[in-house]
């Protein structure tokens, strides 16, 4: 059984992001494996270990530097990697086409994991587009998955905390959510071993991706400005307390 995990090389969530030319970020920050993809890798490795002759393959599209993210996935237990090397940004339409091409040239997937989203673009589309291209069923924000030879039974968390259970025929595409597992840090020996695992490189142009009629591109990037405006709360203590309670409940929605 081949389990593919699509991983993305993203800026560290703790990095201070600087926007350049209103359209791109200063890439002189640490890049890491997208946190949701850590859950995907962890689950893929767990499933692999329950099936004989199965392997986990990490796939990534990115600049050559993105090999580091694949190596992180390998250190976390993936068996080998595929890097589609490209210096350009790709929208989710193209990304899904590229991933499909790289996967098809490598084998036959039984399961394809993605993260439920990437923390940089937050498009949340890749798994659906991939599913559509392959004609596979898709579930996202998956917090539980049981797999047998022919199907996957998954729990998918909806907004508001409701959980739906689905049965998906294999092959299928699964978007990993935070609740799926607790990713483990790679062990020191696994980090060392990961260097010896293979990462196959594809050149973007060689994959002959059919251009899409539709496309999406960034027009402008703006830093998020959190407007802070002080408000004076007046009245006697019980009124002040009441007002604060209302603000916490209705505006801040923290209680």
């Amino acid at each position: 059984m081949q389990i593919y995990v699509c991983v993305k090389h993203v800026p560290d969530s703790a990095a201070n992001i600087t926007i350049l030319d209103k359209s791109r970020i200063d890439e002189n920050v640490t890049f890491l494996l997208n946190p949701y993809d850590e859950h995907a890798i962890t689950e893929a490795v767990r499933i692999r270990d329950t099936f004989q002759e199965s392997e986990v393959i990490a796939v990534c599209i990115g600049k050559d530097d993105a090999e580091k993210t694949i190596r992180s996935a390998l250190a976390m237990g993936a068996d080998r990697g595929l890097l589609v090397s490209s210096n350009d940004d790709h929208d989710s339409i193209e990304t899904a086409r590229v991933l499909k091409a790289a996967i098809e040239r490598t084998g036959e997937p039984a399961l394809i994991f993605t993260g439920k989203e990437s923390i940089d673009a937050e498009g949340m589309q890749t798994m659906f587009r991939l599913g559509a291209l392959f004609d596979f069923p898709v579930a996202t924000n998956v917090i539980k998955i049981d797999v047998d030879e022919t199907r996957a039974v998954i729990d998918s968390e909806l907004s508001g905390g409701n959980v739906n259970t689905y049965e998906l025929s294999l092959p299928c595409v699964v978007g990993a959510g935070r609740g799926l597992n607790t990713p483990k840090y790679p062990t020191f020996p696994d980090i060392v071993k990961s260097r010896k695992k293979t990462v196959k490189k594809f050149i973007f142009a060689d994959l002959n991706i059919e251009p899409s009629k539709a496309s999406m591109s960034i027009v402008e990037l703006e830093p998020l400005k959190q407007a802070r405006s002080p408000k004076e709360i007046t009245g006697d203590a019980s009124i002040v307390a009441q007002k604060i309670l209302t603000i916490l409940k209705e505006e801040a929605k923290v209680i």
Partner: protein
Amino acid sequence: MAQQIVDRRDIDFVLHEQFMAGDFAEKHEDFADFNKKTIDMIVSEARTFAIKELLPTYKEGDEQGCTFKNGEVITPESFKRVYDLLNEAEWLAMVEDPEWGGQGMPRLASSAAYEYFNAANYPFMMYAGLTHGAGKLVESFGTDEQKELFLKKMYSGEWTGTMMLTEPGAGSDVGALTTTATKNDDGTYSIKGDKIFISGGDHDIADNIIHPTLARIEGAPEGTKGISLFLVPKIRVNDDGSLGEPNDVICTGIEHKLGIHGNSTCSIALGGKGECVGTLLGEENKGMKAMFLMMNEARLLVGYQGFACASASYIHAVNYARERVQGKNLLEMMDPAAQPVTIINHPDVRRQLMEMKVYVEGARSLLYYVNYCSDMAKIAETEEEREKYEGFIEVLTPIAKGYVTDRAFDICSQGVQVYGGYGYIEEFPVAQLLRDCRITMIYEGTNGVQAMDLLGRKLGLKKGKPIMDLFGEMLKTVANAKKIPSLEADAVKVEELFNKLVEVALHMGQAAMSEKVLSAFANAHPLMDATGDVMMAWMLLWRATIAATKLEKAKKKDIPFYEGLLKSLTYFVDAKLPITIGRMNGLMNTSSAAVDIDAASFPS
């Protein structure tokens, strides 16, 4: 959450541009796994672990501290979980022999991981660091049986370790200790005595604690010659490795301290009920010798601890100075319409950051160099070469511990200063870094003891050969620097400084063996300061030489970095080197005032 706690670009520079860490993979089969890319991955993973797991527990560890209740030590809440994570990922014994559960990594490469871990939370890392050190004692001096029983469990972190030396009457003078060991019929020893200030002496993060303990066998000679080393577990260990009965090792209290609150500092009563049993580690009466063998490593580790505080304080200060807006640009002082600027624009703040920069960079290179020397000694092909690098380690250890931690504390203080009033407020990390850093100047041999070691033992070691060999290495750097026209003038000044140190060292060495011995030792610490300064000058010149060579073809994003290294050298040569010359002039005076003054002349 901070993205940076130490300067990764500079770490990469020291590892791969100054000391070529990846080349060890080809130099020796034991290191074959550790090429440049693997090292980079390890450093990146260490960074991730440090920032995601260790750093968030730093402040909490400080605030909660350790508590002592009903005879038990309770560590900060989050420590147990993080300790388990550290061990699951197998970080504890990175550089040790894989046969016993180590990872066999070159020491140079491990430097970066240690820097990250300690910069993130060094009080926590002490539990792991001492366990590693105690394990190393077992590995070096243990019998096969002791190794089987203890070592893997220590290197895996399942059990922790300590260093049990200090007693109320035996601090700097370990030889004064009174803990006794009485041989039993079965070859074990009954241990009896009271130890104090034992780091990690008791805690709740692991099931057992193994204490390498110094004690005197009944009838053994007085002083250091009669000291033996024992392995004393908190809980006895059965032959099959399972835990047995408690071993009468009782924590009687913990200290309330200026810093490192997350690390327990324990008073331990051994054998109060007469039931504390230990096994001899190494030979009878050779305990101090065993300890000495470990001392360089332990002292270097303390150098890293202090340095890591400084390294983190520096990064915090730089980031703060870039953000804090206060005051107008000096040149626009008179313009009422001028906007306030970030404080990094004020010359005095820049100077403070520059002070921090040069010592952090110089100390990083120096500490990593000592580890580089360990690796070179390990892979040396001739006995002569091995001795050469071991000699360097001997000479540099008091500097790496004493001088580096002295400067580290200064740097942490500068870090507080850059923050202004906010630096003094516990909300910001620089205050804690300053407090935590302070102990590194005291334990593992006070810095006064380090200075005496430099003057009394290291300068004259093997008739001065190691120190002269080291000068040889330093002159090589000067020769390389002189080939670069833009560095030539500075290189000449640094060379003059080196030569002056030779003169001062000879003078001090002679004074120490003359009737002026007391005056000489009253000047031991200034000598360590001057020698350390010279090592900084060496490292900064070495770094600038590399930077100057690389600048021509540097990538755009590397240019400010390399230019900054050149400025570090300029700053040191212009602003610091004259002070060092002054220090050296002071040393040539070898003032006896401090020893001549009557103790009664101090206020009563």
